[in-house]
């Protein structure tokens, strides 16, 4: 049987609705003025136009490096809350005008595993105060872009769960092991001011010979520079500006962490994180990690300033995560070396990590 389907020539593969195209066109005009989009990006759709500019910005700032370690999304949406396709269409049917606000939403779908224990030992051999300065500055920089699950988070979780339990009940539990797991080189130093930690790193860097320790400190100082002047835009910062956001965040079941910063894989911090991750999101949607609003109903100049700042924020986030990815890769190499040596010495087989915590995708 011969089948013939009529063909319409010159039609694009993707068509977006008016509700998507109109806000994208406003955004696109501003991005064209700012030089983030170029005339060559235009192929007839405003959504595609913005997408091309956005992808190029991500590429230029190192998204490929970011994808090696971090798993998540940075998106521009016309809604803040999780909606089904049907809810979205019903919502649109009720309004005549297109969206006057867009949202920048960033979230992490998996926690990158960062076993820092072996790295701390390497840093300690270079200088006894280096591990604490490195740990504090690294955690401070990461926390500007993600929720970090670390020793403090695990300690809090363990303390809550140990509260009403008898000593006998806790004999085989992991919770009492969390607090003593803190390495000696960090004891009494976790409350160090991050700026002071950074100044220590700057002072120590020239004295370090060519080594992994020097590479780590150099990358960390670069990360510090990329993230300097930025702060974490938690969703609750917009509660007064977005109607209904307060109620939505009340219903949410937490925020997914971007990384697990523990000493070694399968240590008490990792066990607490696994336990918390098992239940997170069961009683509601996960709240976004970063939420920012774009007001499209502003005069041209104001909109350009607003978007200029926002896209510089996105670029800084990608540059910072790319730089942090380099640090994490060195840390993982050091950890793998530690594991090989440890296995040879002890004669015990090492356990592999949980796959979802060592997933290297974005």
């Amino acid at each position, binding site marked *: 049987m011969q089948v013939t*389907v009529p063909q319409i020539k010159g039609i694009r593969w993707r068509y977006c609705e008016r509700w998507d195209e109109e806000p994208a066109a406003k955004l696109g005009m501003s991005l064209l003025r700012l030089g983030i989009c170029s005339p060559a990006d235009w192929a007839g759709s405003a959504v595609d136009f913005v997408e091309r500019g956005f992808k190029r910005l991500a590429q230029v700032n190192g998204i490929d490096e970011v994808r090696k370690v971090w798993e998540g999304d940075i998106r521009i949406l016309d809604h803040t809350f999780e909606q089904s396709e049907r809810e979205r269409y019903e919502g649109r049917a009720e309004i005549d005008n297109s969206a006057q606000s867009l949202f920048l939403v960033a979230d992490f779908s998996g926690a990158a595993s960062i076993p820092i224990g072996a790295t701390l030992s390497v840093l300690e051999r270079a200088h006894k105060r280096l591990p604490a300065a490195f740990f504090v500055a690294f955690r401070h920089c990461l926390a500007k872009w993600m929720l970090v699950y670390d020793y403090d988070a695990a300690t809090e979780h363990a303390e809550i769960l140990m509260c009403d339990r008898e000593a006998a009940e806790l004999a085989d539990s992991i919770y009492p092991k969390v607090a003593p797991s803190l390495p000696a080189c960090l004891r009494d130093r976790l409350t160090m001011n991050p700026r002071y930690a950074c100044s220590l790193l700057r002072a120590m860097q020239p004295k370090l010979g060519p080594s992994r320790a020097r590479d780590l400190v150099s990358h960390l100082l670069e990360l510090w520079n990329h993230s300097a002047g930025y702060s974490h835009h938690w969703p609750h910062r917009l509660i007064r500006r977005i109607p209904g956001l307060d109620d939505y965040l009340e219903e949410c079941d937490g925020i997914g962490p971007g990384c697990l910063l523990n000493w070694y894989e399968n240590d008490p911090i990792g066990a607490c994180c696994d336990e918390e991750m098992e239940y997170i999101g069961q009683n509601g949607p996960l709240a976004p990690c970063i939420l920012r609003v774009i007001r499209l109903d502003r005069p041209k100049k104001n909109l350009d300033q607003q978007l200029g700042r926002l896209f510089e924020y996105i670029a800084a986030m990608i540059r910072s995560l790319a730089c942090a990815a380099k640090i994490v890769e060195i840390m993982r190499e050091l950890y793998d070396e530690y594991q090989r040596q440890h296995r040879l010495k002890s004669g015990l087989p090492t356990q592999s990590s949980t796959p979802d915590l060592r997933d290297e995708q974005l």
Partner: protein
Amino acid sequence: MKPRRKKDTKKPAVSRGANQHLSQRDDCARVMRELEAVGKTCPDKDPLVEQLRKCPETFVAGEMLGKMFDSLKYNRANSENDERLIPPAGIVFPLV
């Protein structure tokens, strides 16, 4: 002193760099106009609508394909209550 003959060099009125700059500015202005027109275009002037007007069978065929894809997407391929999809006579599936 021997008078030096001035070289007869013909400079273009607008240099190549300036031409490129002008062309880029034109492109920017054109794309800006296109973006400004988004959402303001009259449906009658939409090229897609115009082509569908000339060939309404295409719309029927497209609608039919859409329903077929929907039935696959929502796993309703074997449902007995589905309406029967009939293509426009003699155009979409001409009999051999």
